[in-house]
């Protein structure tokens, strides 16, 4: 029997695996304080991927047009040879690394070190850029530090009001919903902001349904009302913030009637939302991908943080802003150096002191560390181009399905000299690879992850991986050795973690006091934890914010349109998202029979009024076209969505890929693509005529 955590989202529910016939039996672990025994359908069925046949068991290499099984020696030799050849011909930056927010802290750390020390490339980023990078950028600007939630999730149940912005935990992290229910049972209120009346919105006291891409204006409209109705906490603003005058001016430029016309949210609803938020002493704003995955995502999150700061709902117990991080290690994955501008411990690659610190741990000259490189989409868009990346190692990501403007990304991947992919399954990206390396998955390996709460957790191996499968750490170890680094890339997780602790000592995300033993004994430790006898930090900012002056900073942003607004040719908004059944690109969950049966393919959600105008009904095939591509999928008609917007989930590959449509317009600060809003046209699908076979046909005269 092994206690571990779920392979999927950032909630990292506690699980217990019992050996059983075939795959282990999964149950929720009652003692783990976050999920308290609950698991969603994805978690319950997660062991299916441990079955033989579901996963890759041998390396694959491409010969001519096909992939064939190969030995690890041959596969690693090929990757290392390609890296060496590319670096020799085109320089070290032409070798790229693309990581993932599902990788353990140890993997993320070693991958960053591998890029900077073994490859000496600046070309490294990861799919977390597509996840919470806007929230991270806004949090760092406002508070001086980014940790998804600055408080334990359980605090949500004890505050007075929660505004959930563009978050649908009822589908994306169902076990978290209990905290929203408890919040309401305790007399608190829930406000949900979403263009769709989601399952989460159904739970709310108030649902605001703005036009996609207008969350920023909505936040400033609420801030305006907070000023007008005397809810600014002047004492808090004076003592703990800077920049209020500018933020107040921004609010004055977003008066409620203007915001109503921009957002479609009526002024009485704005008033009601502000009333719920301010009628109790404590309140929280939690955002997820809705406001974040916009070309103004950083400014949008900044606007919501401004609302918290102005009303004094930050920096004290049971109040504050938080981001519901998405991927399993979305938090830890962004702290340990696979991000293009970062070193372990959330240190900046451009900070001389940080470079010196980390270089000393790595035993290299700080001058040899590369500088910041391109962001995820920019890196992918550079593949195979002059000056771009020509050999790419992908670890734990499936950009063919999950990146914006996916057909373009697939073309770029196709233009590489060499693509190597480490994955558990033969993902759509792995299908394009020259070398596929089958790696261990959650229950087959040990390593730490950091949940959305900033709680560092330990996943433990419960079963032995199939023969022929190695860990990602072993892959990096093997490649580094081939590239001339016989030491410095251990493949034992605890050994890597020990080095990570040293590398993060004194850093913003300080793990130096955390050990596997402590995590086990304490059911997780909250960073920062600078010493073995330090209790960890469940709640941040109670005394001061993390800027040098201890004050939080207002963002004072301004509404601007989405990069692509509807027009005559593309008259509707498309927004994309997730369903309860699948996780991210679906590479794992689509291979679980129960989940695949429950949600076999993509669909287009649209309002009855829009459906009536198009003359389509439930199940009719629709073609959705944007400036980047066209997708055909069946209609799902529901009054739960705005009539000017259609929604598609993005979990599926092939012709139904929602990301064939999405707009790679990037946020200027976070470099987040605008997944959540683009302009489309929707038509009843015209299917190719079925040809009558040239068989004899009986004709009656």
């Amino acid at each position, binding site marked *: 029997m092994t206690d571990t955590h779920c392979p999927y989202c950032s909630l990292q529910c506690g699980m217990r695996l019992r050996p059983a016939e075939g795959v282990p039996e999964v149950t929720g672990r009652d003692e783990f304080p976050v999920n308290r025994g609950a698991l969603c359908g994805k978690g319950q069925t997660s062991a299916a991927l441990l079955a033989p046949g579901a996963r890759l068991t041998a390396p694959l290499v491409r010969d001519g047009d096909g992939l064939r099984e190969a030995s690890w020696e041959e596969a690693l030799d090929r990757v290392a040879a390609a890296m060496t050849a590319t670096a020799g011909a085109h320089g070290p930056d032409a070798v790229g690394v693309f990581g993932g927010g599902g990788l353990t802290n140890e993997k993320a750390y070693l991958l960053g070190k591998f890029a900077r020390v073994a490859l000496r490339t600046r070309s490294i980023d990861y799919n977390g850029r597509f996840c919470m990078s806007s929230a991270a950028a806004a949090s760092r600007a406002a508070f001086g530090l980014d940790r998804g939630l600055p408080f334990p999730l359980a605090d949500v149940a004890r505050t007075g009001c929660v505004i959930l912005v563009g978050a649908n935990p009822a589908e994306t992290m169902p076990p978290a919903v209990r905290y929203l229910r408890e919040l309401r049972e305790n007399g608190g209120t829930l406000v949900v902001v979403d263009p769709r009346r989601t399952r989460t919105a159904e739970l709310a006291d108030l649902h605001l*349904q703005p036009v996609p891409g207008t969350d920023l204006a909505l936040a400033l409209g609420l801030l305006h009302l907070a000023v007008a109705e005397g809810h600014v906490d002047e004492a808090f603003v004076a003592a703990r913030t800077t920049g209020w005058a500018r933020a107040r001016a921004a609010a004055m430029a977003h008066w409620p009637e203007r915001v109503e016309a921009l957002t479609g949210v*009526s*002024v*009485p609803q704005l008033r009601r939302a502000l009333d719920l938020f301010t009628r109790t002493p404590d309140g929280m704003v939690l955002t997820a991908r809705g406001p974040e995955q916009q070309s103004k995502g950083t400014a949008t999150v900044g606007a919501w943080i401004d609302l918290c700061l102005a009303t004094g709902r930050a920096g004290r117990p049971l109040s504050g802003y938080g981001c519901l991080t998405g991927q399993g290690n979305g938090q830890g994955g962004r702290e340990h150096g696979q991000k293009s501008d970062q070193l372990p411990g959330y240190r900046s690659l451009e900070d001389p002191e940080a470079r010196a610190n980390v270089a000393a741990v790595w035993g290299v000259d700080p001058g040899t560390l590369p500088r910041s490189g391109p962001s995820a989409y920019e890196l992918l868009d550079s593949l195979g181009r002059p000056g771009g990346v020509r050999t790419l190692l992908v670890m734990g990501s499936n950009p063919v399905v999950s990146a914006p403007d996916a057909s373009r990304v697939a073309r770029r991947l196709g233009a590489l000299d060499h693509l190597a992919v480490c994955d558990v399954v033969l993902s759509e990206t792995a299908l394009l690879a020259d070398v596929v390396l089958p790696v261990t998955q959650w229950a087959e390996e040990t390593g730490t992850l950091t949940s959305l709460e900033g709680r560092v957790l330990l996943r433990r191996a419960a079963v032995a991986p199939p023969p022929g499968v190695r860990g990602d750490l072993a892959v990096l170890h093997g490649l580094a050795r081939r590239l001339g680094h016989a030491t410095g890339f251990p493949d034992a997780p605890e050994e890597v973690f020990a080095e990570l602790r040293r590398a993060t000592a004194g850093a913003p995300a300080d793990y130096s006091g955390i050990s596997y033993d402590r995590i086990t004994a304490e059911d997780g430790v909250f960073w920062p934890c600078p010493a073995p006898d330090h209790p960890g930090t469940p709640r941040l900012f109670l005394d001061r914010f993390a800027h040098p002056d201890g004050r939080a900073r207002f963002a*004072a942003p301004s509404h601007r349109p989405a990069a692509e607004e509807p027009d005559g040719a593309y008259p509707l908004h498309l927004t994309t998202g997730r369903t309860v059944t699948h996780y991210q690109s679906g590479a794992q969950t689509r291979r679980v029979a129960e989940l695949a049966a429950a949600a076999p393919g993509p669909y287009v959600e649209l309002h009855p009024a829009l459906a009536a105008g198009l003359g389509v009904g439930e199940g009719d095939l629709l073609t959705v076209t944007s400036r980047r591509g066209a997708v055909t999928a069946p209609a799902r008609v529901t009054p739960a969505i705005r009539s000017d917007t259609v929604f598609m989930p993005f979990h599926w590959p092939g012709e139904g890929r929602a990301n064939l449509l999405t707009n790679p317009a990037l946020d200027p600060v976070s470099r987040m693509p605008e997944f959540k809003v683009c302009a489309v046209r929707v038509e009843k699908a015209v299917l190719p005529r079925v040809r009558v076979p040239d068989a004899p046909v009986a004709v009656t005269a």
Partner: protein
Amino acid sequence: MRSRRIAVVGAGMAGARLAAQLHAHAGPTETTLYGAEPQGPYNRTLLADVLAGRHRADALALPTGDARVRTGAEVVAVDIRGRALTLADGSRETYDELVLATGAEPVLPPLGGPVGPSAGVHTLRSLADCARLARDADTAARAVVIGGGVLGIATARALAARGLTVRIVHRGPHLAERHLDRLAGTALRTALDRLGVTVHTGERAPVLEGGERVTGVALADGRRTAADLVVLACGARPRTGLARAAGLAVRHGVMVDDTLACAPHTYAIGDCAEHRGVPQGLATTAWDQADVLAARLSRTGPGARYTGSPALARLTAGPVEYAAFGSCDDAAEEGADVLRIGDATRGAYKKLVLRGDRIVGAILVGDLATAGGLARAFLTGRPVGPDPLSLLVPPSSARLPEESRP
């Protein structure tokens, strides 16, 4: 490239928006706002809320990006050809591009009797006006507001909130007749009545009475109503003196084309401008124009054109609220489909005017629950679908009790 110096005459809402947008576009521009008032730009639409005690007078400032804001710097002359302007103190400044954003000034109808704030006869167009009116209101018991449009209604409500007995004396057949039909005007009158504000309509020639101070207003039927102060809210006209003196074409406002230009290197936006024969008075329209001009001047959108703004009128004066979109007076109903809901008990009135499946106009008074959806439907011009009534009546899930009112 040397950055171009943009001189904006008038530090009001249009000028502030232009400056903020030029900053956002980060083009090669250097902006200076010249304002006669002692403050930088502020949100003028909130003056009645300041009077009502809802907003603080010193908290209305608007963002101006990285513009240099010169307050107390009235421009008294512009030399279009020489690209220079003269300030009240006699100093001269040169520029590369000139933007007139001089706004509008209150219309002061000839009403006889005492004149000016010192006599208790006020206007409400600036923070200074607001301060004078508020001071007067502190010692007054009875007020008369001449004019029953948006500003008159909002001012009347604000004075009522301060405890004064207020009457509105309005020239038109019903309140806000530029935006509303007769039934909506009646619903509004009922809402004001509940606040203790009495409305007199059809008063074409009220006469102010008094000597050094106003004492009352004489109405057409010979009745007199006593007043300790009077507010003139009879509309505004474009402030065009500077443009006229500079030789620019002026009709009602400074005439501009779709590029908002009125002469080479010279532009006009906001309340002072007249575009396609239409002067305008809405802040949102001024901002639309500022957005277009900022795109052009920053060269981020050199082809941007201004082709007009949708008519979207909103009033929020405490519990007295309305939204009016497009054409919705009684004449607009001719040959159109009209959906109408009247609810006298709850003081609500709603109307949707359709031609085919397109919205021509709409009115909401008293119950603004669907104002957002209606605004979006009107702005996008998309077909209304099979259930247009849903634009007037929210689904039950979206209905909300308004437990707290400002």
